[in-house]
């Protein structure tokens, strides 16, 4: 049986709900800090799948959104590309 603690949130980096919740509760951290501590959102898809879930968990633990800020920063490349593609300007 899979319980909710073992439920995967970030599929790329295989980070569970339990790991995220305990880290968020322990450090009362920002979404960015939660990402850096657990690697959630740092995988192949660039957080496209788990970003909303992570935002919601942080909102639950620390409800103070700054409307002008995106909690998890976007960084190029926003799609998976090879080193060759990024390194070389054609």
């Amino acid at each position, binding site marked *: 049986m899979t319980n909710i603690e073992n*439920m995967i949130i970030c599929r790329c980096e295989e980070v569970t*709900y339990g790991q995220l919740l305990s880290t968020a509760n322990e450090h009362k951290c920002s979404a960015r800090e939660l990402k850096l501590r657990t690697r959630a959102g740092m995988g192949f898809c660039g957080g496209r799948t788990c970003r909303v879930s992570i935002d919601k968990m942080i909102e639950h*633990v620390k409800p103070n959104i700054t409307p002008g800020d*995106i909690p998890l*920063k976007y960084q190029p490349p926003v799609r998976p590309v090879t080193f060759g*593609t*990024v390194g070389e300007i054609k």
Partner: protein
Amino acid sequence: MRDVIVIGAGPAGLAGAISCAANGLLVTVLDEFMKPGGRLLGQLHQEPSGEWWNGIKEAERLHQEANKLAVDIRCGISVYNLEQEGHHWHVHTNTGRLTARFVLVATGAAEYPIPVPGWTLPGVMSIGAAQVMTNVHRVQVGKKGIIIGANILAFAILNELQLAGINIDRIVLPEKTPISGKAAEPEEIMKSLLQAAHLAPSPLLRFGGRFMKHDWIRKLGLTFFPKNGVKVNGTPLQLRKAAVEIIGKDQVEGVRVADTDVNGMIIPGSETIYEADFVCIAGGLYPLAELAAVAGCPFQYVPELGGHVPCHSEIMETPLEGLFVAGNITGIESGKIAMAQGNVAGLSIAKQAGKGTGTIDQQLQQAVQNIRNVRQNAAIQFNPEIDKGRKKMKELWKEHYAKGDEKFHKIG
């Protein structure tokens, strides 16, 4: 050299490209998918007027119109970065770098899931994936499916799956967690569905739409909500049941479901297993704004628009010179709105490029008014408070970015 690069060949991007090209600009459109149309390609539904909305036909119409105007459409290309240099924008793609003075970002929306234990099993997909498999790729999703999550998107796609002869066994809610939030509260769901009830094109939302507007009747309605659910075109909608786990060894075999109280809290000892070979999770949509973000565009969190949206004016400019947005990146709405917005963005670009005759201002005004008309006549809104969200953005723009005098210089 080209004047405009449009990112995204959906309804907003194609409409934008068409109005740019119609005003004499050279346009290149880029899209990740193998053919143009974006989310239009999955849409098929009956309007309240009885007419059918066939997204594939709409996409073909836009594609042909763009072709006639010699718009250069390139499919199967991913944009991974967007950078400003002087008065130009560099668009980095997996097949090289393109440059233009104007960029229209029309990247649409992405789905977000509601994680459920077992959701990584093969056979679990987002509701939008089921739509793409069915209507775009014409692949049968499975023999018997369960939808987790009850929202407008889920109902629209349920209808499409039913039209294709795909068997959806039932719709249940997700279990209440900090992530699922309101999506797991029967009363919240009831409220949002009732707001659409008077406009519902099919009998799906007509249950009690008229007499359940008062809080106490709604509570009573939920208390006595039939255990087997209310049928939506033959599929039971079970607001008092929550998916606790998706089960299966190598693939989906079923869903473990528990009864809940009116607040969505699980009633211990009430679990049952329903068999299924596929599961669709309907979380919702959020504006896919990655490229506007890496370009350095300021953002605002507007829940009525679906989340963080790039700051933009009514004529679809952003605070960054030469960067425009249109479609679901500015807020979650229908494809028709996206087209109307794309048209505005295209005219806006043409105006800044000094194209169009003396009537361009008037055309732009009419196009902005057209967005409002389309919105007013829309059968169903993804967010019933969309007007409030649009107004918030308008105010924000007026306060922070509108530059009265400078604007007049640009017109000339």
